[in-house]
């Protein structure tokens, strides 16, 4: 109870909670489209690809301003997407192959840059290694405002183009036959996913960020057969896991936030997989047992 009151009065805790809730909502909503379009792995590649972007942005500007670093992350994520699309288009390498190659190459380059920066060890410690596994405790008001602006813009686009994104996810050729430019829509949706990833980088980190996209969507899908409801549930699950994980990690300084958020999320995903009314495994098993019993009679 004391912790709850602190949440509203303590400056750090409030930023941490707000920031993680924001990232949970945005990645939950966009994750629904990523999962329904079977692009969960793309999110993973984009998140890993962000690391060299962050490092380069820091090396070039010597600035730790969140806008600068996140812009670097976004540009790198974007480049990775383009690279993956071009590889698939012009070579015989399959999509998952291209994703794997780009993900590991960008991430490897990012680690090299990160090591270089840490070794150089400027007077003001870069703190960039926080981007690997996330550290919610480092969230300050400036970060939260940046996250809110980016996330608000992304959610606004989803609200505006909900009909188009739904059609794209369900039946892209049909959308194209109706005259919707599916390339533009696809690039737009991927860009929004990049934004969702960028928002989560500082809190969750590049290594585990993809789970924040996939987890809430997968859990939400278990509870409903309506896309609208699924998106709202995913936002709630994402926010819940984000806040829970961040607060646990902040309460003990040694724990990186990303893993705590993902473990909180895993609890939600597992509960959904087993206990969701229509699709839950437990009820499935029960139904089967009952049917078998009925047949045996």
């Amino acid at each position, binding site marked *: 109870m004391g912790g709850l009151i602190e949440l509203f009065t303590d400056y750090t805790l409030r930023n941490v909670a707000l920031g993680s809730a924001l990232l949970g909502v945005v990645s939950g909503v966009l994750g629904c489209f990523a999962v*329904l379009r079977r*692009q969960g792995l*793309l999110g993973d590649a984009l998140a890993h690809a962000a690391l060299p972007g962050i490092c380069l942005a820091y090396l070039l500007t010597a600035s730790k301003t969140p806008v600068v670093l996140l812009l670097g992350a976004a540009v790198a994520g974007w480049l990775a997407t383009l690279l*993956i*699309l071009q590889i*698939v*288009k012009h070579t*015989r390498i*399959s*999509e998952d192959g*291209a994703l794997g190659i780009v993900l590991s190459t960008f991430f490897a380059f990012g680690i090299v840059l990160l090591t270089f920066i840490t070794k150089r060890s400027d007077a003001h410690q870069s703190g960039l290694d926080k981007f690997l596994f996330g550290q919610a405790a480092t969230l300050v008001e400036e970060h939260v405002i940046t996250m809110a602006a980016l996330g608000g813009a992304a959610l606004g686009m989803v609200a*505006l*183009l*909900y*009909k*188009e994104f*739904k*059609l*794209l*996810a*369900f*039946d*892209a*050729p*049909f*959308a*194209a*036959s*109706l*005259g*919707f430019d*599916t*390339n533009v829509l*696809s690039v737009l949706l991927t860009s929004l996913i990049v934004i969702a990833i960028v928002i989560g980088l500082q809190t969750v980190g590049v290594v585990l960020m993809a789970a924040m996209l996939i987890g809430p969507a997968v859990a939400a*899908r278990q509870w*409903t*057969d*309506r*896309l609208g*409801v*699924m998106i709202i549930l995913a936002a709630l699950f994402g926010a819940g896991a984000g806040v829970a994980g961040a607060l646990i990690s902040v309460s003990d300084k040694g724990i990186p936030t990303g893993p705590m958020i993902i473990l909180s999320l895993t609890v939600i995903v597992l509960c959904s997989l087993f206990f969701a009314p229509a699709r839950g495994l437990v009820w499935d098993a029960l139904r089967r047992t009952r049917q078998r019993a009925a047949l045996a009679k």
Partner: protein
Amino acid sequence: MIAQSIVEERSSTAVPRMDAAVANPVEINDLTVAYRDNPVLQDIDLTVPEGKLAAIIGPNGAGKSTLIKAVLGLVPTVAGSVRIYGKPYAQQRRLIGYVPQRNSVDWDFPTTALDVVMMGTYGRLGWIRRPGKAERDFAMHCLAQVGMDGYADRQISQLSGGQQQRVFLARALAQNAHIYFMDEPFVGVDAVTERAIVALLRELQRQGKTVICVHHDLDSAPDYFDWVALLNVRLIASGPFETTFTADNLRKTYGGTMKAAIEHFQHFEEDRRGSRIEN
């Protein structure tokens, strides 16, 4: 099962047909589609006259689906042109209804039958505008025309294959078109659905619409359709069934090239899977 009134009464308010008296619904000239260096369709010249129930028939890998997709601008063409009532497809979208292959989408998608049918109205709505009560009501009418109004709120994975196919047909009806392109609508459907589709085709023809179906079953084709295009990468023959659907033409379409055609098709399918990320 087929309520005829709805589509008909809506048609009068739809985009008027362009020079219907002079231009044919579909005119394809010198169309070539290639995958890498292999032609999938070569030098296709095909004109489908107004009001026909047309079947596109040919072996696997003949390019039947590709022909429809090329007309709809869904695959890049190497050469040739397509005219819909005398004008490019991009100007005539509102006159077209499209039923893709049923297995081209994920039926576990979290949505209802009615919602899928409403997607047929999205083209008229254009960007950003959301469907309202008018679209909802019209979609219900379209569902009723294929005997699926009782399943409007069903999640689409809880429908049988035939019911899913009828939902796809209803979605095309919701496009309120003059020309319907259907990709294998009879594949894997139950007898009830088969009868429903046949009745629907007849009803569309009665209203003066043109229907072009990819069809694979040689036995049923003469019963369902009155016009045929025999295709095997090149157009072998096209015209009314009686004069076109001959043993000689069928031998030209299917004979000899069967094995090469199958291999060809598999390459194309592989590429399609590989390029899914672009969509």
